[in-house]
């Protein structure tokens, strides 16, 4: 009790201090926390603090290495003089643990890769649990500030409707894919004598049909599965593009009008097309029931002609191969050219500072390092001399070193750095991988450039915050809508529901708030556009 009272006095001063620093003057913060602001935080250079300080960090963990033993984090501690005490929870149950921690009233000092949703950011930001970061960014984050200055869109995307920034994002501009691309099985194309990829939905249909009828895998059996998918989630966006639709749920067209996809005419055409594929068994008949592993197993059995994955070889098996071309978006009669979605490049919620953090400035400097070349390199590729070394330091060219112990490179990397499989605060800078790209990497890059980027790929709908009310309404609407829409999609495609019932489907969706979804996102988009 005694301690609590003492804590309270400290808490008041801490609250005032934080309020002052952040310039937000939020009034009713009732949090715990002892501040010892005596430590000097250096403006630039390392170490960040002259006296060793300790912070608690909450982060998801993929369970390959104890974070205390990660070389990158050890180096970071040495460099910055900030000791992080890791509070990890397994990635799959991280959500549960995160909610518990927020409810418990005892917060870690920083959240790393916690994937805080916009709703969480606003909610906990308003309660004062998360500290507004904009002033800290201004004063203590030169690297991140540079990112914001160079990309005004990023600042717009991470600012909550109340004008505060509660979290730092993952910034990834080099990765253009909105969804994993689709790939053709190169052998099948060759067998059927294709030297030009299908460019329209009709040509695509003919190709798939021929795969099935002409025994593309040459085993004498008609066991080909021309188009395979898991729940359509992986191929939906690519096919919708043929009907002028950028994304499966919400997109904005070229005239700044926001659409809710499931009630669009193009969506109807898409269903009709897939229904046709389904009827002729050109679309995997197990699309709605199989797992990703089962799909892969079929592909490795040399049965699949067209599928989606990060790289073709991951599904087809074997070594990286440049013989399996990327799917070039096709067009229907509805449009002059297919539309193509591009990755947003910004994911919010990657790093936040809590109100019980006694050293917000030092924390901001710590994370800011990760938004510069050196820090991004350290966290994404591991320390110099372990998995890579410079061949020419002046031009930042590097080469890979053999993996110590001879195992898998990625497995080894996962024991060095936390940035593995989690949405960690970082930025992708082309220089980081200079010299490390293989011929295959360049080939893939060229495929996406010529087939997607040069064909006018763009972001379907910007990353932005809804207001608290909008968010609440959308959450309520989507929970029912998505279930219904996905169910009906499957029914229309498999023929369980005839396309003749489209009108009554539209009526039901609109009754459930389909049109309202478009309105909400339209309003949010207009605000974003003006800001």
């Amino acid at each position, binding site marked *: 009790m005694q301690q609590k009272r003492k804590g309270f006095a400290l808490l008041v001063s801490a609250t005032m201090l934080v309020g002052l620093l952040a310039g937000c003057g939020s009034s009713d913060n009732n949090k715990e926390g002892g501040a010892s602001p005596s430590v000097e935080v250096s403006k630039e250079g390392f170490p960040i603090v002259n006296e060793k300080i300790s912070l608690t960090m909450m982060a998801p*963990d*993929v*369970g390959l290495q*104890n974070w205390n033993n990660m070389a990158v984090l050890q180096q970071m501690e040495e460099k910055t003089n900030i000791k992080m005490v890791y*509070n*990890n*929870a*397994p*990635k*799959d*149950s991280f959500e*549960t*643990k995160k909610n*518990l921690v927020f*409810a*418990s*009233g*005892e917060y870690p000092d920083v959240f790393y890769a916690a994937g805080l949703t916009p709703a969480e950011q606003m909610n906990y930001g308003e309660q004062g649990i998360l500290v507004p970061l904009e002033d800290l960014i201004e004063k203590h984050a030169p690297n991140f500030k540079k990112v914001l200055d160079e990309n005004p869109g990023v600042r717009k995307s991470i600012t909550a409707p109340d004008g505060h920034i509660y979290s730092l994002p993952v910034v*990834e501009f080099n*990765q253009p*894919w*909105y*969804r*994993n691309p689709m790939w053709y099985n190169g052998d099948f194309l060759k067998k059927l004598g294709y030297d030009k990829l299908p460019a329209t939905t009709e040509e695509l249909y003919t190709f798939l049909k021929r795969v099935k009828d002409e025994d593309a895998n040459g085993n004498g059996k008609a066991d080909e599965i021309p188009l395979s998918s*898991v*729940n359509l*989630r*992986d*191929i*939906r966006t690519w096919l919708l593009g043929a009907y002028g639709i950028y994304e499966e749920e919400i997109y904005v067209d070229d005239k700044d009008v926001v659409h809710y996809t499931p009630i669009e005419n193009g969506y109807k055409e898409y269903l009709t097309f897939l229904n046709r594929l389904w009827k002729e068994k050109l679309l995997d008949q197990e699309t709605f029931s199989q*797992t*990703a*592993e*089962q799909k*892969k*197993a*079929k592909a*490795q*059995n040399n049965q699949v002609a067209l599928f*989606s994955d*990060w*790289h073709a070889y*991951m599904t087809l098996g074997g070594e990286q191969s440049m013989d399996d071309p990327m799917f070039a978006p096709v067009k229907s009669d509805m449009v002059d050219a297919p539309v193509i979605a591009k*990755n947003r490049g910004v994911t919010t919620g990657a790093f936040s500072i809590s109100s019980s953090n006694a050293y917000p400035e030092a924390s901001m400097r710590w994370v800011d390092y990760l938004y510069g070349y050196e820090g991004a390199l350290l966290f*994404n590729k591991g320390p110099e001399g372990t998995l890579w070394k410079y061949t020419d330091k002046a031009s930042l060219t590097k080469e890979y070193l053999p993996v110590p112990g001879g195992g*898998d490179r*990625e*497995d080894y*990397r*996962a024991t060095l750095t936390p940035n*593995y*499989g989690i949405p960690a605060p970082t930025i*992708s800078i082309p220089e980081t991988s200079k010299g490390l790209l293989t011929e295959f990497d360049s080939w893939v890059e060229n495929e996406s450039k010529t087939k997607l980027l040069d064909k006018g790929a763009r972001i379907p709908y910007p990353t932005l915050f809804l207001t608290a009310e909008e968010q609440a309404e959308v959450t309520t609407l989507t929970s029912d809508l998505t279930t219904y829409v996905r169910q009906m999609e499957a029914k229309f495609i498999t023929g369980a529901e005839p396309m003749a019932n489209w009108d009554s489907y539209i009526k039901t969706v609109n009754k459930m708030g389909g049109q309202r979804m478009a309105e909400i996102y339209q309003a949010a988009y207009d605000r974003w556009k003006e800001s």
Partner: protein
Amino acid sequence: MVTTFKESKRDKLFLALNYLYLTVALVLVLYPLLYIVSASISSPQYVNTGEMWLFPKGFTLDGYKLVFDNPKIWNGYMNTVIYTVLGTLLNLVVTLPAAYALSRSDFVGRNLFMGMFLVTMFFNGGLIPSYLLIKNLGLINTMGALILPVAASVWNIIVARTFFHSTIPKELQEAAHIDGSTNMNLFIRIVLPLSMPIIAVMALFYGVSHWNSYFPALIYLNDESKYPLQMVLRQILVLQEMSAETTGAAISGDIAEAMNNKAEIASLVKYAVIIVSTLPIVILYPFLQRYFVQGVMIGSVKG
């Protein structure tokens, strides 16, 4: 089978149907077990395509090799053994005296206490209050968090109470008292030796629940070195989940590649891990089964 009288046609029909029914039941129970054993020594490719459906195909022991090479699994094993042994001992120490006391008719206020116990069966504080309680007790990230909160299960107390009630007659208690025995003496010297079946049953109930539990570990532990086996298994399976999660969603290339590698290993390890983690309990069952049937039946039939 010894037939002492001639079976009628209907008896024969009954028997035949009985055997048929039992065979079906046996297949239903045995098939998943066999499938897992076969899958654990088959190449994952065949398992995923469904080509392996009963007997192993593409024989490989790589799954087991990966499991046994993983130091975390051994550490988890050790932790689980500690939690199970300590936890079960504590469970018995708490449950048996409570159940015995509640079974005695001369125990003043037994209905009140029983009522209090029963309330907790139907109402509890919920996840967050429980978390706050454990936190304020200073048990977060300690082994105690996995053992103390589950020290007594009301359900098991009731089972044990019914057993004591029906097998230890009041006369025995009176006779002991006349010979000058105290209540404690009576419990330790007379009641416990007579109650081996229920002790075995309780040990099994509690032991299995400790062995299989992961949720408290998930919530209360932050330190990997304290994770029980089930948590480690979950972590291994998470990797597979992650690869499924990336279906369709473009992420960064490093992650995609990593997940691709992981997915193969995870599907290889999955079944081996299931075998390794359940085997000890499966082996334990036949030895305790004798008591198991006896103990539960006595409690339920006569109670």
